[in-house]
């Protein structure tokens, strides 16, 4: 085990996979000399050279499209988007091309492509650089959607993503990059997709959170334990594939569920999770499933307002108490 930041964990896995497999290469904006604006590609240019560590123009649709074409021709590209907000500039390539090529050509093609980058709040980057955009990609068949919440998960899930033969949307969170944690040194360490992680066991309420909310839910759980409320915290880790079994089993045990994410609440993935719970564990529920997500407005520039838009620790505590009728 080594203590690494989330950003270092990502960087190290990219380097290890590039050493292991010469088909793996990376391209994106400012990733070569600069090493990425969040340092996730630092030192890669020096080790692997400019053919495999490619600075690109600010041209997201072309970068993603070139990644698709290279993937179709035997390479395993990693495309870094500086902000996942910029996926919107490349939507045709992601949703109409990458996601559909395999299906539309009768399974005769594969697109081993990782599109990765960060999203979310924390730096007051305003409405076009602070969104959480993962949900849109869960709606399009053919894409896998990954949301690591810790350095170890970032490492294990990214390795699985790079070795997967499908297009992967790999969402990092800018506020998690400096988070430290233990990461296994084994260069084969990987975490399978579709396996939710029980971050903390508990009997009374199931809280399902992603990205930053995994840690926040953990700290809420510690606080509430002192009040005699035993919270179970689950991190789905991947939304597609979705490891619902762990969540359903948990709700059958606790009878209560709160879902929390930073993406907008309306039509957010929390709605999907709440529906799955209703469909598959309705008779076990002692209260309606509670959803928490961003208010339906654009992420503001001002840090105070940014926090006013997204769920806070107190909102989670209140939600937990409300499903316990407290």
């Amino acid at each position, binding site marked *: 085990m080594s203590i690494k930041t989330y950003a270092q964990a990502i960087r190290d896995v990219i380097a290890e996979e590039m050493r292991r497999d010469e088909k793996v290469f990376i391209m994106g904006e400012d990733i070569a000399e600069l090493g990425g604006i969040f340092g996730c590609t630092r030192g890669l240019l020096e080790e692997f050279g400019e053919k495999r560590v490619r600075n690109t123009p600010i041209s997201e649709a072309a970068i993603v499209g070139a*990644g698709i074409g290279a993937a179709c021709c035997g390479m395993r590209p990693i495309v870094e988007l500086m902000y996942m907000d910029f996926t919107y500039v490349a939507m045709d390539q992601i949703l109409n091309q990458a996601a559909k090529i395999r299906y539309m050509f009768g399974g005769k093609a594969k697109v081993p492509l990782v599109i990765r980058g960060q999203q979310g709040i924390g730096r007051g980057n305003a409405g076009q650089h602070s969104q959480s955009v993962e949900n849109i990609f869960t709606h399009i068949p053919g894409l896998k959607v990954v949301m690591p919440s810790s350095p170890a998960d970032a490492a294990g899930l990214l390795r699985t993503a790079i070795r997967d033969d*499908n297009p992967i949307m790999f969402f990092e969170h800018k506020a998690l990059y400096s988070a430290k944690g233990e990461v296994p040194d084994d260069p084969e360490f990987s975490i399978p997709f579709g396996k939710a992680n029980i971050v903390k066991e508990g009997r009374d309420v199931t809280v399902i959170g992603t990205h930053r909310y995994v840690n926040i839910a953990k700290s809420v759980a510690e606080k509430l334990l002192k009040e005699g409320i035993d919270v179970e915290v689950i991190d789905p880790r991947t939304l597609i594939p979705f490891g619902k079994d762990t969540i359903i089993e948990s709700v059958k045990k606790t009878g209560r569920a709160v879902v929390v994410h930073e993406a907008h609440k309306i039509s957010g993935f929390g709605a999907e999770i709440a529906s799955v719970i209703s469909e598959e564990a309705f008779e076990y529920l002692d209260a309606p499933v509670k959803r928490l997500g961003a208010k339906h407005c654009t992420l503001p520039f001002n840090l105070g307002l940014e926090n006013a838009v997204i769920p806070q620790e107190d909102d989670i505590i209140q939600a937990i108490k409300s499903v316990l009728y407290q």
Partner: protein
Amino acid sequence: MHIADFTKGNLGANAIVGGGIPIAVGAGLAASLQETDQVAVSFFGDGASNQGIFHESLNLAAVWKLPVVFVCENNGYGISVPLRQSTSVSDISVRAKAYDIPGFTVDGNDVLSIDEVVKDAIDRARTGQGPTLIECRTYRWMGHWIGDPQVYRTKEEVDEWKLKCPIKRFREYLISNDMFTAGELDAMEEEAARCVEEAGKFAMDSSEPDPATVMDDVFFEN
């Protein structure tokens, strides 16, 4: 429309106008990284040259000097809209200048002219000189879809273009230069027609797909 054969290097026709252009750039990138002598050729229409992705793709291929040939089949109409209503230039090939790559306009109904200009483009691609944009001036004989009333053009215009049939012209060239006899070419045409007919018959005679397979191939199962 959705035809592809990855085993032959055909990465597929695309139902999004311009959608396949950056994918060809990626194929060129793969050839460059793998150091093969492959060249990616991207076919698209005049309409696609007004999409942003066309411009982004030319720029990226030019910056990286990738082995790509961009072939624009300019048939004068984007569905029903004539070029003058949709496109700021009359020669689409001039758009190459903006990316500092060679651009050519050729008679798209003349096999030999195309052969010549494409050969040069492939040579440039293979020798690390980067991409080329080739505009082939041609025409669409049929409507854009079955039942297209074609109110946007005259019958005289269509008839005039039919006289410039590229296959007929090339056939005459081959015969007048004693390269093939009419009989040999007839045999080839019959063979091609038979092949198409057989393929059509195979498709029509094939059973409908099993609904149980509808979820196959959403993902590659590692």
